[in-house]
């Protein structure tokens, strides 16, 4: 990866708001403005706005682009109509995860892929390597600013700012009259949308969402919010060495498609059961917050693996984590131990997600 740090078009606004910037995926991004706990609560109870300008936008077009994407991605885009989107995964030949992304069908002939910041060059290189005639890629990642507005008040805020537009349904995509892109998706478990506009307009819209009631939120809250929902983070919970079947993302892999890159591994794992599974783990005694790379043991002391993610859940008030464990130890209710600085703390496997939303 390049040593150059990339800067969001909103950086000056972040600094003016007192944000603390950290390196993330090659970018300098706000980890928090005032307090991760306050920002977390704002999203669960009202609304927060996150800068997601670091994420990548790749537009794929052409008459046959859907058939091409369906050979490159695990989910099934041919099942969507224009205006609809789906979570999907790009795999290497061994069935390991290159990136997880959302694909939105803009029209019959064009699809938008929103990909992880750190993976933009690799994703684009992979797509170019497999490109066929009649399909065109446009990596417009630098041209767009992105904002994720998330929380129970997010829809009302949209209504205030865009009184003549209608939010798309869940997972849907809308192009506004002004040319902004609105996707009814997110990474928090709350209602909300991801909003993309030309980079130069980013600071103006950021300010508009804030003055309409959204609290600026950083990557710290984004991490606690997504982990409460067991949404995986590529690089932590997903890797080129692990398949989406192991990651528990089989729902987003359509094995009825005759062909896509990585399919053989997935089909065999689905048939025989994967050897390891990304498992939700909860601390059952008061202890330090679990964190990535802490080691996990069986109740009997057998080493099982390590945590890929872990935090003290602000909503639930207890330690929550995920990690790849041997299949025999993944059934909900299996007692485990987590080693934290040489002491073993009691934990248990639980059903995903940690936060059960009553909707």
């Amino acid at each position, binding site marked *: 990866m390049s040593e150059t740090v990339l800067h969001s078009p909103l950086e000056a606004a972040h600094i003016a708001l007192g944000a603390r910037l950290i390196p993330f995926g090659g970018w300098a991004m706000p980890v928090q403005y*005032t307090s*991760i706990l306050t920002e977390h609560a704002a999203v669960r109870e009202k609304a927060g706005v996150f800068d997601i300008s670091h994420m990548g936008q790749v537009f794929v077009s052409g008459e046959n682009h859907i058939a091409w994407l369906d050979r490159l991605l695990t989910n099934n885009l041919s099942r969507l109509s224009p205006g609809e989107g789906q979570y999907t995964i790009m795999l290497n030949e061994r069935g390991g995860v290159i990136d997880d992304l959302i694909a939105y069908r803009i029209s019959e002939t064009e699809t938008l892929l929103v990909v992880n910041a750190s993976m933009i060059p690799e994703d684009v290189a992979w797509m170019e390597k497999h490109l066929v005639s009649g399909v065109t890629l446009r990596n417009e990642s630098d041209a767009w600013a992105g904002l994720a507005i998330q929380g129970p008040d997010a829809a009302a805020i949209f209504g205030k700012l865009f009184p003549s537009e209608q939010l798309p349904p869940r997972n849907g995509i809308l192009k506004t009259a002004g040319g902004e892109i609105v996707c009814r998706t997110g990474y928090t478990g709350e209602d909300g949308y991801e909003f993309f506009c030309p980079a130069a307009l980013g600071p103006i819209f950021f300010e508009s969402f804030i003055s309409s009631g959204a609290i600026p939120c950083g990557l710290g809250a984004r991490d*606690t919010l997504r982990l409460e929902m067991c949404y995986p983070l590529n690089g932590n919970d997903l890797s080129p060495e692990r398949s989406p079947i192991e990651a528990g993302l089989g729902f987003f892999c359509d094995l009825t498609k005759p062909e896509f890159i990585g399919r053989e591994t997935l089909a065999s794992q689905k048939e025989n059961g994967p050897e390891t599974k990304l498992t939700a783990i909860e601390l059952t005694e008061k202890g*330090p917050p679990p964190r990535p790379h802490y080691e996990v043991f069986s109740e009997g002391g057998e080493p099982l693996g390590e945590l890929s993610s872990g935090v003290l859940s602000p909503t639930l008030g207890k330690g929550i984590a995920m990690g790849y464990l041997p299949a025999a130890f993944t059934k909900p209710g299996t007692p485990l131990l987590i080693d934290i600085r040489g002491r073993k703390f009691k934990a248990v496997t639980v059903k995903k997600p940690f936060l059960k939303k009553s909707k």
Partner: protein
Amino acid sequence: MSASEIPADLLFQSSHEWARVEGDTATVGISDHAQAELTDVVFVELPAMGRAVDAGDPTAVVESVKAASDIYAPVSGEIVEVNPAVEADPSLVNTDPYGAGWIFKIKLSKPDQASGLLTPAAYGELIG
């Protein structure tokens, strides 16, 4: 925070612990500057009572949402008291770092060691 807002009866380490020395005992916590940098303290791991520590030893752990930070003993001696209140409510470290948010007390084995710590003015200069 300017030096004038730092309590005058405290001594500091450059790693942001404070010590209030009364007789042969030093009460230890982290500075207001440190708690502001850490933000949202969610867990405090206290040392064992009776443990012997050398100045500079990692003695407690303060964890925010994002990171775990070692707290180093500013002086050598024996842990004679720990603060159960910060274990029960770690946010005291944020809300009252120089008072209710204290972490442990050390009975000094080398009483003259305290003179090597930073004065409030010197610490104020360090944190700018």
